[in-house]
């Protein structure tokens, strides 16, 4: 139990009759975790609870061993990069970040040094002396991010961190998160863009209607969804012949041939057996297999299956 990043028991929070999160019991070990869910799933409520902005209506919540709400000790080790744009327009980026650091208790000299380092890390080295009023959306994002990491937090929470960023900067920020993960910083990323979460981490927390729908590494979650057969796409010269052979394989539930030929989609309840037997089948049939791919093992498919 101790040592876990986030640990909650029966965590609930409601706003009048509207339920934000409903009876969440979970334990997150740490590392980089993606927080997902459709709109209205309770993601923002959960984030606010974990960031200590609001207090639970019921149940317990411990983050890094702290009770988050209004906990100054906790705030010292927490970095929060919210979705909303809230910068002081008159300040330049460096002033803004230094100002926030000074509020946290750093002296002027150290605040400035840390601010510069953080802004360099988020790629604003050349722009840090410009007023934030003139910043593009992407630069504002990066300023917020810098402010969240400047005090070297142990736990970083980011809400839609990559919105408004062009692909170049996107990949730089993804690299930054991976780097932070390697440095031992825990990161909780909330996002709607599934392929970006996939590129940073395997571990996810999926919320839906205020409840926890799934947690853990995506491939493991997929294995738990045994009622959905695994889908595999194969391109082969003689798809039909291969299809016939695969239909005889134990566990295959369906084979679908593409009308244009040369491609088949297979569904099987026993993926392991499929992988084990395929080489022999391929050698025997000589159907000219060119590519082989599992099409529903990724986050996209898992999300679909669970949220529907």
């Amino acid at each position: 139990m101790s040592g876990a990043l986030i640990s909650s028991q029966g965590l609930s929070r409601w706003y009048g009759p509207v339920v934000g999160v409903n009876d969440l019991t979970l334990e997150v070990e740490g590392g980089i975790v993606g927080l997902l869910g459709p709109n209205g799933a309770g993601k923002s409520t959960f984030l606010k609870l974990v960031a200590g902005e609001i207090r639970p209506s019921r149940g317990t919540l411990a983050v890094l061993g702290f009770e988050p709400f209004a906990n100054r000790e906790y705030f010292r080790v927490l970095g929060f990069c919210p979705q909303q744009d809230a910068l002081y327009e008159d300040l330049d980026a460096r002033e803004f970040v230094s100002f926030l650091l000074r509020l946290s208790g750093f002296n002027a000299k150290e605040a400035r040094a840390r601010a510069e380092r953080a802004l360099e890390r988020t790629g604003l080295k050349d722009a840090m002396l410009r007023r934030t009023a003139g910043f593009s959306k992407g630069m504002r994002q990066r300023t917020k991010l810098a402010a969240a990491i400047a005090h070297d937090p142990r736990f970083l929470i980011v809400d839609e961190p990559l919105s408004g960023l062009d692909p170049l900067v996107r990949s730089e920020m993804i690299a930054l998160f991976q780097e932070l993960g390697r440095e031992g910083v825990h990161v909780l990323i909330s996002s709607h863009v599934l392929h970006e979460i996939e590129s940073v981490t395997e571990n996810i927390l999926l919320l839906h209607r205020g409840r926890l729908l799934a947690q853990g590494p995506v491939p493991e979650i997929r294995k738990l969804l045994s009622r959905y057969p695994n889908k595999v796409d194969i391109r082969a010269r003689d798809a039909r012949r291969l299809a016939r052979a695969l239909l005889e394989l134990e566990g295959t539930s369906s084979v679908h041939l593409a009308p244009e030929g040369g491609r088949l989609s297979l569904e099987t309840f026993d993926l392991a057996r499929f992988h084990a037997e395929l080489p022999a089948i391929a050698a025997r049939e000589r159907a000219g297999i060119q590519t082989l791919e599992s099409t529903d093992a990724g986050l996209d498919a898992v999300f679909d299956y669970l949220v529907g």
Partner: protein
Amino acid sequence: MTSASAAPVIEIHELSKSYGSVRALDKLSLTLEGGAVGLLGPNGAGKTTLIKLLLGLLVPDSGTASIAGSNPATAAGRLALRRSVGYMPESDCLIPGMSAIELVATLGELSGLSREDAMTRAHEVLDYVGLDESRYRDCEQYSTGMKQRLKLAQALVHDPPLLLLDEPTNGLDPKGRKHMLELVADLGTAQGKSLLVCSHLLPDVERTCERVVVLKAGHAALEGSIADLTQRRGRRLRANFGGALEPLDALLAQAGIAVESTSGNSRVLVLNEAEADADSLFALCGRAGVRIESLSELRSSLEQVFLEGLSREEPA
């Protein structure tokens, strides 16, 4: 469905536009014939200026352009081209105090439809984007997904041949994103519209567009079809293996299959020209008790193409 008509939908030649000392567009040349083209580029590369030009809201400094058959150099042309263009803005925008059906119908009328036509079209496009009962409600209360679909509907109401979609999946949750991308893909293929899709999300662009243009500092740094740009180079395959991997590398070497790179249980293999397929690889693995869990052609990703396009030196 109709194939691309003879004249390209957008034909821009050496278009330039400056604001004071800032060169927003620098001798940009671009041709869009039909289907969907993705417009990529870093922020500030001139995308907004290009959109304003395509909507006839700016007068170009120099260069020629023909947009949906109209010439934006003349005032009449600028007005005319807006009849043939539908714009889905990136920002959160709506007309205050109206329901979705009124908004779309009014905008349809403003595009030149008669009141009855505008009403019928409005209902049809709202059906198409999937806004059902909620179309009669005040659109200020819509969720992000509904607002995005409303924006698409108002761009379609006058059935323009050219659509400008600016970040169509902005703020959408995974389900909403999927639905929107389906609509956009459908518009570009089955409905035969010409689309210019501006997006920072490369997988979105890959899903919906056949071609891309990468803007950099106001000109087209890279242009081409996605299939060509991400073409596989040589017969390279990425294979993910499972099971006991120790004998694998030795076996591959024995069989004369070159291994270009290794990462965990993944290998990039180079098959020689004589091999038309991977059957022999399967046979090899079968004998060794090694599983092949996935096998795919190695193509450069659109992201790599984009990054390359940006870092390329400009020709003198």
